[in-house]
């Protein structure tokens, strides 16, 4: 084991870590928007919308992410769309993450006591106000810790986009391994970067959980 291999490629790994973080962040942000729509569809009283929401979650949680990513990659090519690999990768991560985030949000809404919406109706709040001022703030508060958890999972899953050639942490570690003939050091180095990012995120998660729990009835 030669630690200097890791030190010498530190710059490349840092840059790659930036790509990993941006790809995952874009994935989680777009995934949140789609996930919110899927969640609303799933909670809808219209049967076909509810069925659509359930089907979306079932498909995107059931098909392995690697298959989804390759599908995105080939699907767009099949229809002659010349989309850069990066867009396919972010899109694939976002669509997959949306299914998990929709479930997180649905769980949060279901966790809210029914009496609150009823009380708001009794007090004469309009439907949109009930959503905006009573249900949404509380549901978001409940879902922040699991959403951070989902971010960690997505960050790890983003290593799979290396197969479509994005120069993120895993890909760059592979390149370093093949250039230096030192796979052990290259992958330990890459792994340490992932670990550092994820432990930081987990720390934020714990902090958020404590902050949000303050002033809440136990």
């Amino acid at each position, binding site marked *: *084991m030669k630690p200097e291999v890791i030190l010498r490629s530190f710059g490349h790994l840092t840059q790659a870590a930036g790509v990993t973080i941006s790809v995952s962040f874009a994935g989680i942000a777009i995934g949140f928007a789609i996930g919110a729509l899927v969640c609303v569809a799933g909670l809808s009283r219209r049967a076909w919308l509810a069925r659509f929401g359930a089907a979306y979650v*079932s*498909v995107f*949680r*059931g*098909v*392995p*992410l*690697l*298959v*989804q990513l*390759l*599908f995105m990659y*080939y*699907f767009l*090519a*099949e229809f002659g769309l010349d989309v850069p690999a990066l867009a396919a990768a972010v899109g694939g991560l976002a669509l997959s993450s949306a299914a998990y985030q929709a479930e997180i949000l649905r769980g949060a809404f279901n966790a809210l006591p029914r009496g609150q919406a009823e009380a708001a109706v009794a007090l004469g709040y309009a439907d949109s106000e009930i959503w905006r001022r009573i249900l949404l703030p509380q549901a978001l508060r409940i879902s922040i810790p699991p959403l951070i958890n989902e971010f*960690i999972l997505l960050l*790890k*899953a*983003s*290593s*799979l986009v*290396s*197969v479509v050639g994005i120069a993120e*942490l*895993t890909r760059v*570690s*592979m390149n370093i*391994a093949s250039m230096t003939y*030192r*796979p*052990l050091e*290259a*992958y*330990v180095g*890459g*792994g340490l970067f*992932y*670990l550092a990012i*994820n*432990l930081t995120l*987990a720390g934020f998660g714990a902090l958020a959980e404590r902050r949000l729990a303050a002033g809440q009835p136990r």
Partner: protein
Amino acid sequence: MNPDVLWRYLPSLLSGFGVTVLCWSAGGALGVVLGFGLALLRRLDFPPLRWTLRAFVEVFRGTPFLMQLFLLYAGGPYIGLRLSATAAGILGLGLYSSAYFAEIFRGGFATVPHGQIEAAISVGMRPLDTLLRVELPAALIAAVPAIVNMLIVLSKETVVLSIITVPELMYQMQTMAAETFTAFDAIFAMAVFYWLLVEAVSRLGARAEARVTAYMASEGARA
């Protein structure tokens, strides 16, 4: 997709499916056993060991499975660990999932009410009996749903093994796609297949979970 192509590649696809099932079951079994061992060791009152185990869990849960596989398969030979792709895949799945299983079992032990353990001590049960007859049954019942869930997650992770050339289903399918220029059709078929597989496994899992929980609850009541 051309049915002829599929027919011609059926043997290799079937063998790939066999390898997928083998890796899943062997890796999952290894993970459950290792994870249970880790959870038991973590109960010992010896701080350095606890910290080491904690670090093990953090490392395996904090890094991508693909990275662990590369490290094991490409880096292994440099520390004298020379494994075939399939062996590395099974060991990788086992190590990766053992960290999650360890946490699941730990969570299971944490659900056992303290009063039960105190009661066991006060009626004069030895520590081993307390563990085997009081804590373990209750902990396992609590852990079953999470174990089933993790096994379902693991069934999807087997796909990643194709990247280190384990000849499982995904790998065989990509070989077929490359040789017959049917990438899109093959990926589409694969997506449908895995979706059905995971749905079936989830349904079976839910039934197994109900069975096991009911069985263990009745056994626990008798013991």
